[in-house]
């Protein structure tokens, strides 16, 4: 091969790959710029806003880290037992942490149990799958509107409950002690079926050889479940716990559409939303949202390390 021919080929190749790169950029340009603009760019803008006092209308006023100081003061005030009217952000965090601590384990365990039952030769399995999946394709606001009706004192849910537990008929949505529980029940109802289908798929993908080997070694059914199935499901459990936690910490729709009395169901995002759109304290709301972001990021990071699952 003569040097001139080689360099010709090389330049041809370079030209071709440069053309390929240009075409690649053209293809991704529109979609990628929309996403990056409405995520990275607006996030940086929110970070910028969090150092200002602004109400959307009057000129912005630079206040340094004052908004962040206010966030921590509100949390500290809440820990010290300050008035609920001044510490709604703290109440939101408290409610959401409690909500997450109940909803995530319950829906995950329920999904695993259902998946184990469904993981045998079941006739009409697609009927069960459809009915379990239905809540998660329905709008959460519509679900809330229906459940507000079902949770009435004289409603359907109390009718069934009081037939099982005589005399148990709380006025769910009007009672400070029960409103958040009602929302939790709706949330568990809404997500566990969807999760169950993921767990069923994971169960069916487990290697059968391990179970055969365990049978030869004389392992019983329960031993097999606790020493083989659960460890093998660990990545899937980790994934659903992390995704469930991220979702629960940002809970908004249900709490907004089926509110309990006072601050009994206030969530963090609800408080941020009100700070921004009702009180028009944009900077403070942005600072609060970064606090939430940091909490979510930290929890996700810690859980990922613990479960060591592979993200897709």
């Amino acid at each position: 091969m003569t040097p001139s021919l080689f360099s010709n080929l090389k330049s041809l190749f370079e030209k071709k790959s440069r053309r390929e790169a240009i075409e690649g950029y053209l293809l991704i340009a529109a979609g990628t710029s929309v996403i990056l603009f409405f995520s990275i760019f607006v996030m940086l803008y929110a970070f910028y806003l969090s150092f200002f006092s602004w109400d959307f209308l009057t000129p912005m006023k630079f206040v340094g880290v004052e908004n962040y100081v206010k966030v921590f003061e509100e949390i500290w005030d809440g820990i010290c037992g300050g008035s609920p009217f001044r510490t709604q952000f703290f109440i939101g965090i408290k409610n959401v942490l409690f909500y997450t601590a109940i909803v995530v384990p319950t829906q995950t365990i329920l999904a695993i149990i259902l998946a184990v039952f469904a993981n045998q030769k079941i006739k009409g399995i697609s009927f069960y799958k459809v009915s379990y999946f239905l809540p998660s394709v329905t709008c959460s606001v519509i679900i809330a509107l229906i459940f507000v009706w079902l949770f009435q004192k004289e409603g359907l849910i109390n009718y069934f409950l009081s037939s099982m537990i005589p005399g148990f008929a709380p006025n769910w949505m009007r009672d400070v002690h029960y409103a958040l529980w009602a929302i939790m029940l709706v949330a568990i109802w809404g997500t566990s079926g969807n999760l169950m289908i993921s767990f069923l798929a994971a169960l069916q993908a487990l290697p059968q050889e391990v179970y055969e080997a365990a049978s030869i070694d004389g392992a019983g059914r329960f031993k097999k479940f606790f020493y083989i199935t659960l460890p093998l499901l660990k990545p899937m459990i980790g994934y659903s716990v992390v995704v469930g936690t991220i979702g629960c910490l940002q809970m908004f729709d249900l709490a907004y559409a089926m509110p309990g009395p006072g601050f009994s169901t206030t969530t963090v995002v609800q408080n941020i939303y009100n700070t921004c759109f009702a009180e028009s304290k944009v900077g403070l709301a942005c600072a609060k949202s970064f606090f939430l972001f940091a909490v979510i990021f930290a929890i996700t990071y810690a859980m990922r390390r613990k479960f060591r699952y592979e993200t897709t």
Partner: protein
Amino acid sequence: MRLSFRLIMAIVGYIVLTVVAIIYLMPFIRSITASFMTWEQAQRMPPEWIPDPFTTRPFEQILGLKYFPVWLINSVIISASIVTAQTILASMAGFAFARVKFPGREMLFSLLLATMMMPGIVTLMPTYALFSKVGLIDNLLGIIIPGLCGASSIFLMRQYYLSMPQDLFDAARVDGCTFLKIFRHIAFPLARPALGALAIYQFLGSWNSFLGPLAILKSIEKFTLPVGLLFAFNRAWYVEYSPIIAGSTLAAAPTIIIFIIFNKYLIKGIQLTAGKR
């Protein structure tokens, strides 16, 4: 012993699965039947399941509301625009991320994936602030524009294109086709199954979305169905609850029907990703 345990498991399995299925379906059955009842009958305890007398008055009441059809149209406009834009933009980008080599491809793609874990509220407020300067508040475009493309959609399409045989595209390259042409004539038409799944996911997402429309849409005639129904409920436009139930049933009907028709597709998609995890 072995057989009897299997038998017990099967029986218990059927009982548990059926009871849970009834619990999951109950609110749907209850609201559909109650939509055809008089409010007096829907309130009765023990609950009655067969409308007697059969009435369509709840539907008439909610449809008689001047705004309900407007909300429906708004929801349709938003969903149709988002589904159309997403299928085109996400498949273009997904194809490029899977099959076209360009500098910075991997870095850009991981950046896109990282944006998926950002809380919605973090981006909503600055978006609102920007939109308030350009007149996109109280405008359906203010919902549509941020929804034109999504990182999860690009991810889905990229996975699909990676699963297609490389030879398909190589043959066209040898024939001197540009990537833009390959996309238009080969990659896009062949991606129909993935595009279908993407369209359904995006329809469900945009039809059911609440936080964004709640913040951005201000006047009653701009509301989407979820925002409007909640508004009507909170303003207590009805003394009776049944029009709200009928309206909820109507608003949820498109998603439920689409899900029942395409459920194999959607559940398959979940199973695929769950298996890979």
